[in-house]
């Protein structure tokens, strides 16, 4: 008699030990999960620095980007305007801008989109066939929704290549999230108080109806012996006791009810919403901005990047085709701005709302500050030197399969008119100071 009791108590002890171990593991898992949750901070940016340099320096060059506000209340609108140049020397590895979508990069819907335009055309849908070497102007009207400090960028998504972001600015949203309202009036006169909750209650009610029907059908079978007795009976060849005529009757009635609700509900919805439209698809065409009347031709003769000095040196032959003498004002690439502080109007080159973390403190150094006269051709060296090359992770272009650089060179005449020229070409790394 003692042996079975001993076995019984031993097995019970093992079960208790197993439960205790499982509980400990569960507690450990919960603890670790909680610790990770506490230790993890919200993402502050979007990994824009992780994009390869050739994507940022040789595809979309944003310029003249302005944020009209840097602090808004919930429901308050702010506008983001700017321009971008699609670089002529587009990398082979990047899909051409045949299908693009203009948007704003934000950490989720902390802000909402009110309106967006590309060259004045509504940009709710995508655009097709944007042209390389041409400029486009964008406007994004956004609205504060979730309080907090959010990093917002203009964004151009290119089909096959992904998102290419412009300069990001911190936008402070204040107030209470619960106050956010998005009123809409439909074309057939339905007044929607808040788009946030539109149609949700109706959907939840219908889910409840279907779940109730499913619960009825499942409970109808679950209240009876479910697995082992049925399996034994089936193996004994007694299928007759497993499904009765009553089961079939209930099933058929339920099936009819389900079909009736499905089609009845469909007919009722058709009656309730007689005017409906399909989802709107397709792309729009937009013409680029007109080409400027005069320009300065720039031919890069030599370009190098001084790795320890964190400086880009470019020697270029420049020809002024305009009627006014011009000075080099700024070199811009990948949203970084190197301004020649000795050029006329240099103090106004960077607007107050431009992100300061993208402006090079060292500015732009020139071998020759003398203005380029109309019709004159001259060889000029410029140096864009700053730790930003490293901070923005733009130096890894030296490991690209085609070691090239790209950017925009801005000139200014004595009247303050700006001219812009695309520059780029092969670049040579230098691993010691020049």
């Amino acid at each position, binding site marked *: 008699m003692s042996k079975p009791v001993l076995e019984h108590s031993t097995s019970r002890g093992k079960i208790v030990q197993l439960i205790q171990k499982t509980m400990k593991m569960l507690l450990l898992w919960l603890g670790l999960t909680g610790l990770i949750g506490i230790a993890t901070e919200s993402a502050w940016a979007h990994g824009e620095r992780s994009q390869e340099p050739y994507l940022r320096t040789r595809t979309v060059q944003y310029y003249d980007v302005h944020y009209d506000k840097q602090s808004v209340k919930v429901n308050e609108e702010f506008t983001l305007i700017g321009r971008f140049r699609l670089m002529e020397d587009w990398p082979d590895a990047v899909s051409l801008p045949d299908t693009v979508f203009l948007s704003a990069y934000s950490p989720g819907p902390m802000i909402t989109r009110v309106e967006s335009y590309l060259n004045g055309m509504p940009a709710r849908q995508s655009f097709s066939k944007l042209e390389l070497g041409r400029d486009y102007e964008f406007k994004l009207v956004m609205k504060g929704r979730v309080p907090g400090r959010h990093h917002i960028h203009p964004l151009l998504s290119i089909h096959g290549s992904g998102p290419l972001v412009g300069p990001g600015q911190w936008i402070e949203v204040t107030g209470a999230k619960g106050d956010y309202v998005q009123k809409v009036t439909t074309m057939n006169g339905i007044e929607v108080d808040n788009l946030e909750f539109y149609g949700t209650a109706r959907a939840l009610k219908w889910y409840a109806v279907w779940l109730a029907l*499913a619960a009825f059908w499942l409970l109808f079978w679950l209240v009876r*012996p479910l697995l082992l007795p049925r399996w034994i009976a089936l193996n004994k060849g007694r299928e007759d006791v497993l499904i009765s005529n009553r089961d079939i009757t209930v099933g058929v009635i339920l099936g009819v009810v389900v079909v009736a609700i*499905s089609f009845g509900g469909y007919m009722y919805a058709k009656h309730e919403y007689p005017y409906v439209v399909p*989802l709107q698809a397709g792309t729009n065409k937009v013409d680029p901005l007109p080409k400027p009347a005069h320009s300065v031709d720039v031919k890069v003769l030599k370009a190098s990047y001084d790795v320890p000095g964190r400086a880009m040196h470019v020697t270029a032959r420049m020809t002024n085709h305009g009627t006014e003498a011009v000075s080099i004002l700024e070199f811009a690439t990948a949203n970084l701005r190197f301004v020649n502080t000795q050029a006329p109007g240099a103090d106004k080159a960077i607007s107050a709302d431009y992100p300061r973390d993208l402006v090079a403190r060292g500015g732009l150094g020139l071998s020759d500050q003398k203005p380029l006269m109309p019709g004159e051709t001259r060889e000029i060296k410029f140096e864009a030197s700053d730790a930003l090359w490293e901070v923005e992770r733009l130096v890894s272009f030296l490991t690209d399969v085609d070691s090239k650089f790209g950017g925009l060179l801005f000139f200014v005449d004595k009247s303050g008119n700006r001219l812009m020229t695309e520059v780029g070409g092969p670049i040579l790394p230098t691993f010691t100071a020049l």
Partner: protein
Amino acid sequence: MNTETLQHPQGAAAGQTHAHDTVESVSGLSPKALHYSRVFELFVVAAIIMLFAGAIHLHVLLLAGDWDMFLDWKDRQYWPLLSPVVMIMFPAALQGIFWTYFRLPIGATVGATCLMVAVSISRPASFMWWTDYPLNLVLPAQMIAGAIVLDVFLLVFRNALFTAIFGGFAFAFLFYPSNYTIFAPFYVPVSHQGMMASMADLIGYVYPRSATPEYIRIIERGTLRTFGDSASWVSALFGGFICIFMHYAWWYLGIAMSSMKFLPNNAKVMALMGTKADVKASA
């Protein structure tokens, strides 16, 4: 444990049938054994809900993806076609298992309900509470209507082939009308920036999804739009046709996956598994 105590007192034997036989009496299990069986069933039900809620949810996420995820993907063409074709797979497999081993016509409903439970947790948790998107942007489709009818067809026909032909077709064909009642308000037209949009388009536009540009939507493409208003029904019919084959294939896949197969424990297999020296070499 004394196995004799698990026998039913009347001990119904194979071949002996009585008018008032029940599942319990035919099984031959004693009340105590039936009690243990019931407790075991509770654990199985809990395990099935957790396992299949996760599995079906993942499966639908991977294969139906954005069509089930986002409101502005639920178009007239692809949504009524792709969603039921993807969603019938697990319910068909579960139906095969439950019917073959237990004669329970609930497999499809179990699968559909598990998916509904999973999305009822994941959509609010992932989108509404975690990332601040409104719930209406990510309302899921339901397939319970089609699943119940699929189970009823099995109950009536008691045959996998006929269930696939009629039930599989009905599963997909009911998907569109039974979900239209939920999503109809989102197809009303609105004017935005001088262009017409559906309410679903507008909701998708207002709440930015940075990594989901508009052009990524695979909606309303192809010549099916020439059918005009009836495009959804053509899609639903074609979805039904595909679901016939999908159901039949996954029914048997479910049975195969729930069967145990053993490798023969001979010298060749042991050599193959590396637990014994090569047969030829040792010979």
